[in-house]
C-alpha cells in the first residue's frame, strides 16, 4: 500500500451505504485504504438520497464531501449505476459497435465518481492549507458520467457542418478477433505499415487492408470498427500461434483476451491491487518548500502544471487539474499538435481535442532538441507539476526523467500517466505491446468482464481505461500535492491504464482475497434495457425492496423471476419510455430513458447544469466547493 496520505483520515458510512451508492462507497473505501488514509466507518450516519463522507488532514478543518445522483441535490429521481449510464450516454456509446444498447457490465460511473469525490476532498483540504475557506465538496454521479463522455458529446453536438468521415461507420464486425482454435484476441498498431504487411501476408489485397485500416482507426473516434468481413474470415482460418508469429514478423501487436482469474490469482497483480492504481516515490524532505497561496476561489488556483501529453489519458488528467483551478501549460510540437485537426472541427480546432484541452495555455517546443529540453527544464524549475504520457524509456532519452527534473526543482510533483504499469513491469518495456486502451482491456481481464456481462466477444470501444486512467492520474497528482504541503517533499507519481483496469476490477480482487474490511457491492436483482412503445428504458433494482416496488407498481407476478421478467418485457411495450419512467420514478424505482443520441443530452434538465452549449457542447467541472 502507499503512504501518500497516511496522516489523513476519511470517515463515512462505507459499509452501510444506500444501494445506489454501494459500489461508490466500496471503491472509496478501497481507494482511500490504498492511499494510506485512516478509514473510519460511520455506518450509523446514512442517508438514502446521497452519500457523505469527511476528509481530514492534520491542521485543517474536516471537508464534508457529498455525492448525489444528479447535480441538483433536490432532484428526487432515483439513481443507480446503470440508470446514470443510460441517461448520460455511456450505454449508447458502448452499444455502437455491437448494435445493442446495454450496460457496460462494470461499476464504471461509481468508480469514476469515487475517484473524483476523493480527489475533491483532497483538493479542498489542500485549498485550506493555501488560504481558502473550503469546507464542502460536492459531486454527482451524473457529472462524473458526463466528464467521462465529454469527447463523445463534443463530437455529437458540433454545430458546424459535419466532416466527411470515411464511409462504413455503423454496425460491424468489430474486434476482438477469433482464431481457428477459438482464441479471442486484439490486434494493435499505431502505424499503417505493419498493418499492410500483416494483411498482405494473409493474401488480403492492399485496397481491402486499407478499408480495414480506416475502420480500425474509427475505434477511438467513434467507438465503432467496421472491419471488412474478409479480414475477420482470414484470421479465423489460422491458429492463434500462427497469427502471433505473423504479428512478430510484420511488427503488429497481439494480445489475447485473458480471463480475470488469470490476473486475480497472480501474486504480482495482487500486490498491484493492494498498492492501488498509483505508485508514489517521495523525494527527500526539503527544508524550504514553497507554499503558494491560492490566487482564486478554486483549490489549485495559482499552481502551474506543465503537461506534455498526447491523445486522451494524459490530456484528461491535465484538464481535470485545470478544472480545479491550476494553470496548465501544454507543450505541443512546433506547428501544434496534429490532433488539433482531428474531425470534427469547429472554430479552427477539433472539438474532441478542444474538449480536453480548451483550458490550457499552449507552448510550442521541440522536445527532441537540446534547446527544447533545456526550455522545458527551465519551465519545470518554476512549475508545481510536470505531467507526461510518453512511451516507456522516452523520458530518459529526452533528459526529462524524474531524476533530471527533481534536481532542478525538489518541490516538483513529477507525474507519469503510463500504459502498462505504474512500476515498469516487463511488458512495459516491450515494443510488441503498445499500452493502448483496447490492448489493456484485453490483457487486464476488463474485456472479459464486459463480455461476460454483455454477451459480446470482448471489451468496449468506449475508451473506459483512457478516461479512468486520466482521472486517477490527476487524483494521484492532487494527493501528491497535499502530501507535499504536509511533509515538504516533492514526489514521483506514476499511474497507468493497467492500474485503472485493476481499479475497475477491485471487487473481483476483494472477492478472491478478502483483504479489505468491507463487503463488495451486491449484484443488482434486475438490471436491464427494455424496448417500449417508443424508445428504450433502463431499469435497475439494486435490492429486494426496490424490486418489490416494481412488481407491485406494475402488477407483476411476485412468485417467479422468470414469469415477471417475461411479463415485464411485454408490458413495457404498452407505453413510451418517458411515460414508464415517470410511473416508475414515482414509485422510487430507478429508471431512465436510454439516451441514444448524445445530442439530446442537453435537453435533459437533470444534466443541464454540467453542459455548456456553444459551437459544441462542453462538459463543465464536476466539482463544486464551498
Amino acid at each position: 500500500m502507499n503512504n501518500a496520505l497516511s496522516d489523513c483520515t476519511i470517515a463515512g458510512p462505507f459499509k452501510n451505504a444506500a444501494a445506489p451508492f454501494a459500489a461508490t462507497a466500496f471503491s472509496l473505501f478501497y481507494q482511500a485504504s490504498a492511499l494510506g488514509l485512516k478509514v473510519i466507518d460511520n455506518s450509523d450516519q446514512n442517508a438514502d438520497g446521497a452519500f457523505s463522507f469527511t476528509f481530514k488532514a492534520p491542521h485543517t478543518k474536516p471537508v464534508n464531501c457529498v455525492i448525489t445522483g444528479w447535480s441538483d441535490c433536490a432532484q428526487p429521481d432515483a439513481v443507480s449505476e446503470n440508470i446514470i449510464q443510460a441517461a448520460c450516454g455511456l450505454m449508447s456509446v458502448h452499444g455502437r459497435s455491437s448494435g445493442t444498447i446495454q450496460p457496460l457490465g462494470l461499476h464504471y460511473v461509481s468508480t469514476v465518481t469515487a475517484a473524483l469525490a476523493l480527489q475533491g476532498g483532497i483538493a479542498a483540504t489542500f485549498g485550506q492549507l493555501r488560504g481558502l475557506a473550503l469546507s464542502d465538496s460536492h459531486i454527482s454521479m451524473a457529472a462524473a458520467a458526463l466528464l467521462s463522455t465529454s469527447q463523445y458529446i463534443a463530437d455529437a453536438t458540433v454545430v458546424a457542418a459535419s466532416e466527411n468521415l470515411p464511409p462504413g461507420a455503423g454496425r460491424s464486425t468489430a474486434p476482438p478477433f477469433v482464431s481457428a482454435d477459438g482464441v479471442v484476441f486484439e490486434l494493435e498498431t499505431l502505424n499503417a505499415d505493419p498493418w499492410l504487411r500483416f494483411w498482405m501476408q494473409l493474401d488480403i489485397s492492399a485496397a481491402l487492408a486499407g478499408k480495414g485500416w480506416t475502420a480500425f482507426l474509427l475505434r477511438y473516434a467513434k467507438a465503432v470498427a467496421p472491419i471488412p468481413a474478409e479480414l475477420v474470415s482470414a484470421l479465423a482460418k489460422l491458429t492463434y500461434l500462427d497469427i502471433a508469429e505473423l504479428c512478430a514478423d510484420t511488427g503488429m501487436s497481439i494480445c489475447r483476451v485473458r480471463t480475470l482469474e488469470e490476473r486475480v490469482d497472480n501474486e504480482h497483480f495482487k500486490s498491484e491491487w493492494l498498492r492501488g492504481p498509483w505508485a508514489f516515490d517521495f523525494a527527500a524532505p526539503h527544508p524550504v518548500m514553497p507554499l503558494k497561496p491560492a490566487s482564486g476561489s478554486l483549490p489549485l488556483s495559482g499552481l502551474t502544471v506543465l503537461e506534455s501529453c498526447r491523445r486522451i489519458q494524459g490530456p484528461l488528467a491535465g484538464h481535470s487539474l485545470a478544472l480545479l483551478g491550476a494553470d496548465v501549460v501544454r507543450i505541443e510540437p512546433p506547428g501544434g499538435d496534429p490532433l488539433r485537426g482531428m474531425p470534427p472541427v469547429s472554430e479552427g480546432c477539433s472539438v474532441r481535442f478542444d474538449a480536453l484541452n480548451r483550458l490550457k495555455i499552449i507552448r510550442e517546443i521541440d522536445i527532441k532538441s537540446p534547446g527544447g529540453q533545456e526550455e522545458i527544464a527551465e519551465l519545470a524549475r518554476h512549475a508545481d507539476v510536470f505531467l507526461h504520457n510518453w512511451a516507456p524509456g522516452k523520458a530518459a532519452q529526452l533528459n526529462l526523467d524524474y531524476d533530471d527534473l527533481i534536481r532542478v526543482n525538489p518541490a516538483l510533483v513529477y507525474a507519469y500517466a503510463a500504459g502498462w504499469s505504474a512500476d515498469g513491469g516487463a511488458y512495459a518495456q516491450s515494443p510488441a505491446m503498445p499500452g493502448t486502451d483496447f490492448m489493456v482491456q484485453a490483457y487486464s481481464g476488463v474485456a472479459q468482464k464486459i463480455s461476460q456481462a454483455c454477451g459480446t466477444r470482448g471489451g468496449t470501444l468506449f475508451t473506459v481505461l483512457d478516461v479512468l486512467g486520466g482521472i486517477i492520474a490527476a487524483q494521484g497528482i492532487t494527493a501528491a500535492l497535499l502530501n507535499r504541503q504536509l511533509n515538504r517533499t516533492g514526489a514521483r507519481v506514476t499511474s497507468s491504464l493497467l492500474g485503472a483496469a485493476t481499479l475497475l476490477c477491485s471487487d473481483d480482487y476483494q472477492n478472491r482475497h478478502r483483504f479489505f474490511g468491507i463487503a463488495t457491492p451486491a449484484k443488482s436483482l434486475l438490471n436491464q434495457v427494455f424496448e417500449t412503445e417508443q424508445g428504450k428504458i433502463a431499469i435497475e433494482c439494486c435490492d429486494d425492496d426496490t424490486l418489490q416496488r416494481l412488481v407491485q407498481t406494475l402488477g407483476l407476478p411476485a412468485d417467479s423471476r422468470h414469469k415477471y421478467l417475461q411479463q415485464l418485457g411485454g408490458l413495457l411495450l404498452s407505453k413510451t419510455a418517458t411515460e414508464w419512467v415517470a410511473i416508475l420514478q414515482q414509485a422510487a424505482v430507478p429508471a431512465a430513458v436510454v439516451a441514444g443520441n448524445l445530442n439530446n443530452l442537453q435537453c435533459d434538465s437533470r444534466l443541464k447544469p454540467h453542459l455548456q452549449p456553444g459551437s459544441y457542447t462542453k462538459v463543465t467541472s464536476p466539482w463544486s466547493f464551498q
Partner: protein
Amino acid sequence: MPITVIIPTILRPLTNQQKHINLEGNQVSEIIDHMEQQYPGIKEKLVTGGNAHRFINIYVNDNDIRFQDGLATSLRDGDVLTILPAVAGG
C-alpha cells in the same frame, strides 16, 4: 483531367475557406503540387520526407493512398481526393 479535392476544416484557412477545389493532375503528388501553386503553404501540411504526413490521411475515392501507391497513386477523370486529418486515442 478534373479532380475534386475535399479540403478538411483545419486546412481551409489556407484555401480561402474553400471546401472543394477542382484541379488537374494524373497523380496525387501532381494535385498537391498544383494546390501548392494556388495555395502556398498547404504542401508542408500534407507531405513530409516524400510521403504523406503520418497524421494526414488521403483518400482517392474511398481508398487510403497508403494502401495504393502513396503519393504516386494515379488518378482518373472524376476521381475525388479527400484529405482527412487522423483520429487517435490512447
